[in-house]
């Protein structure tokens, strides 16, 4: 993901490592992206009088609470992986990375199940009404972000098996993936609260 053009005179004017700075900058842009998507949903959720059902009528809050908990736990395992690599404990780093990726995949499976029940059992497709369009677009993009995160985590796991160790010097490094992963989790907390819980 990155390559730094300077080496012998590595000095960062801000004191923040350049790749990490870039990740922060990128994530600030992502906040606008999800901000627009969430606003969309809020705008459309009150528009009733078109084809039912509407997302708010068919949310399965207990189920989504469980999958939200799973995603939150993946942040914990991510922290543990980050902690392990700072101790240079390659074995537990790998273990916690795999755990994080697995939790992410469980969340994605939950989302796939949720979408399927909505579409097949409840008859709410992306084209049923604007609120449904906004709901599927928002949660779908979040799911895509989780998927990208899982791919990056698995790539890290792959590197760690192939090379026997993860170094912080590779372009795709654990700290940046962790930042991204936590961001995706935080956004989910907002989505879960604003979209699912607030009536």
């Amino acid at each position, binding site marked *: *993901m*990155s*390559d*730094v*053009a*300077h*080496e*012998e*005179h590595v*000095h*960062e*004017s*801000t004191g*923040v490592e*350049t790749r990490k*700075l*870039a990740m922060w*900058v*990128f994530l*600030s*842009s*992502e906040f*606008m*992206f999800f901000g*627009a*998507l969430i606003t*969309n949903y809020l*705008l*459309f959720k009150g*528009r009733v*009088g*078109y*084809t039912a059902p509407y997302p708010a009528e068919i949310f399965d809050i207990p189920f989504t609470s469980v999958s939200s908990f799973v995603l939150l736990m993946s942040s914990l395992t991510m922290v543990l992986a980050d902690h392990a690599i700072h101790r240079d404990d390659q074995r537990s780093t790998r273990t916690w990375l795999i755990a994080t990726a697995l939790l992410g995949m469980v969340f994605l499976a939950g989302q796939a199940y949720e979408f399927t029940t909505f579409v097949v059992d409840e008859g709410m*497709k*992306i*084209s049923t*009404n*604007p*609120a449904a*369009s*906004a709901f*599927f*677009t928002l949660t779908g*993009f979040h799911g895509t972000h989780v998927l990208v995160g899982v*791919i990056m985590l698995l*790539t890290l796991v792959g*590197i760690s098996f192939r090379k026997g160790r993860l170094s912080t*010097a*590779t*372009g*795709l490094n654990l700290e940046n993936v962790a930042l991204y992963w936590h961001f995706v989790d935080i956004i989910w907390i907002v989505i879960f609260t604003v979209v699912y819980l607030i009536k």
Partner: protein
Amino acid sequence: MATPASPASTIFRRPRQTSGWMSWITTVDHKKIGIMYGYSAFIFFILGGLEALILRLQLAGPDGTVLDAAEYNAMFTMHGTTMVFLFVMPVGAAFFNYLLPLMIGARDVAFPRMNALSFWIFIFGGIFLYSSFLFGTTGPPSGGNLPGGATDASWLGSTINGGWFMYQPNAGPRFSTGTVLDYGAIGLQILGLASLISAVNFIATILNMRAKGMKLLRMPVFIWMTLVVAFLLLFSLPIIAVALFMVTFDRQLGTLFFDTFQGGDAVLWQHLFWLFGHPEVYILILPAMGIVSETLPVFSRKPLFGYPAVVFAGAAIGFLGFGVWAHHMFSSGITPVAQAAFGLATMTIAVPTGIKIFNWLGTMWMGKIKFTTPMLFSLGFVALFVIGGLSGVTHSIVPADWQQTDTYYIVAHFHYVLFGGAIFGIFAGLYYWFPKLTGRMMSEKLGKLHFWLMFIGMNLTFGPMHWLGLQGMVRRTWKYPAEYNFGTWNMVVTVGAFIIASSILVFMLNWTKSKRRGVEAGMDPWDARTIEWSIPNPTPEWNFGVNPDVHSLDDWWHRKYDEDEDGRPVRRPDADSTIAQFHDQGVNPPAPIHLPTPSYFPFFAGASFLAVGYGVIYHTRGWGLPLLIFGVVLLLSSLIGWSLEPLEEEHEEVHA
């Protein structure tokens, strides 16, 4: 010159070519990328200009017969889209790329491969947009007929045709049945991604890669404006990305975001578009403001008047730029409170802009002005931008704006700021930094001819549009009847457009001639102020032979000049030997220098977006979905291959 580092284990060997086409495809050198940005943007400038000339031929007299309505729609849409997304933005990126590391004293940008990726995504996005001429279909327009009852427009009309802002629901699936607007939505999405990546890159570079002593308030104004533009891109592009995804989903997946028959919201599109679109106009103009903030002090032989004020005004324009979007929507039925608020905010934004204008005037006041070509273009910028800015403030008065909306008055306004502003600034920069690129000077004689032709042509073209608009000539009209008496001024406008075209020919002649046979520039031909002139011309591959150590604003100037007690510059006795010393260490670096190694992956990752784009549009056909999957796999494997490229091999030693 370059000796390979020891090869490390990796999937592919990294490319090593230093010349030939392969070196350009795999390059990660910010200078080469900047030059590629510049040339490709200029090609799009020619295309966008030809489209404008066709429009002007159609409107030269009443009841024009050059184009039919569908072709006219396509031509004005392509003209606007090309000029905004494929010329002014990438040419800004060209300047940023080439100059940013040189002006902050860095070896390259923070992420050279990401920089190459931005460029390749931009190129393939542009090719994708323009391929709609070949592959796009329009279908019959709703409630209208094409000539002869045709079901599709001619090839000239078969390209994106919904206006550069693609208003909904007109550009939705209900009213635009063909594929051309899919090309529009997906093409802009691809181009936006390119800009987003470069924004992240430039911000990281400016914040983190500055040379020793290059504090934030010692950075050239051009770098400050680059930073502001990068932040504007960073926060506005995700909004248009969401909006374009919504259009694409409406058209491809049957979502109902903008389908007003089923609860969709047409005004939401306008909000989202202009939330991006207004910062976008500052994205277009701020680079030019940065350029003239460099050229005016050099040719007035005075420091920039009120440097901190210019910097803060630029940042203020950036902030306020996010709070004025609804002044594009005064006639869309937003509430009176919103109209008053956005009207006031729009007036406010004139304040920082005015600060800049007065600072530029203050810079020239009592200066020893040298009327070189770049200076003429900078002066043209200031004059024309003031006209365009003032007509812009008139839009903040809501009732007046209702009269002006969608008339040629608006067209006149934004061409004064974008052509008179942005493009004059860009040409000022091209003439000013040409020696940096080539080591030669551009011809002053041809340059001045270019300036005067363009200045006169520009005013003939866009000046009369003010009164045509106030007389009631509506925008985007493909013809007008003779009894409206628009004919005379429209003829003047068309003549002006061809004068502009001739001035561009003069420029091209000047560029190609001077590149080969121009006068040798030597070191520091303009007696300039900023550190990019402290290195030889053309820029050596390694930029700086010795990492610069910056002591003040306008560091290079202060190495050459002291001030007498009245504040007038006095050339230091050792100035010539300083210049000679910098030349020597620039040509013969005292220590070996490491440069980033080229890479194949940015090119392939960029190319994958072509497959993704066509795959999405044609996913219902048998070959569409496989193409889409191929594109995604190519993208992912390029990115993974990229992230596995060992950084140790990243750096290649260059021995001078």
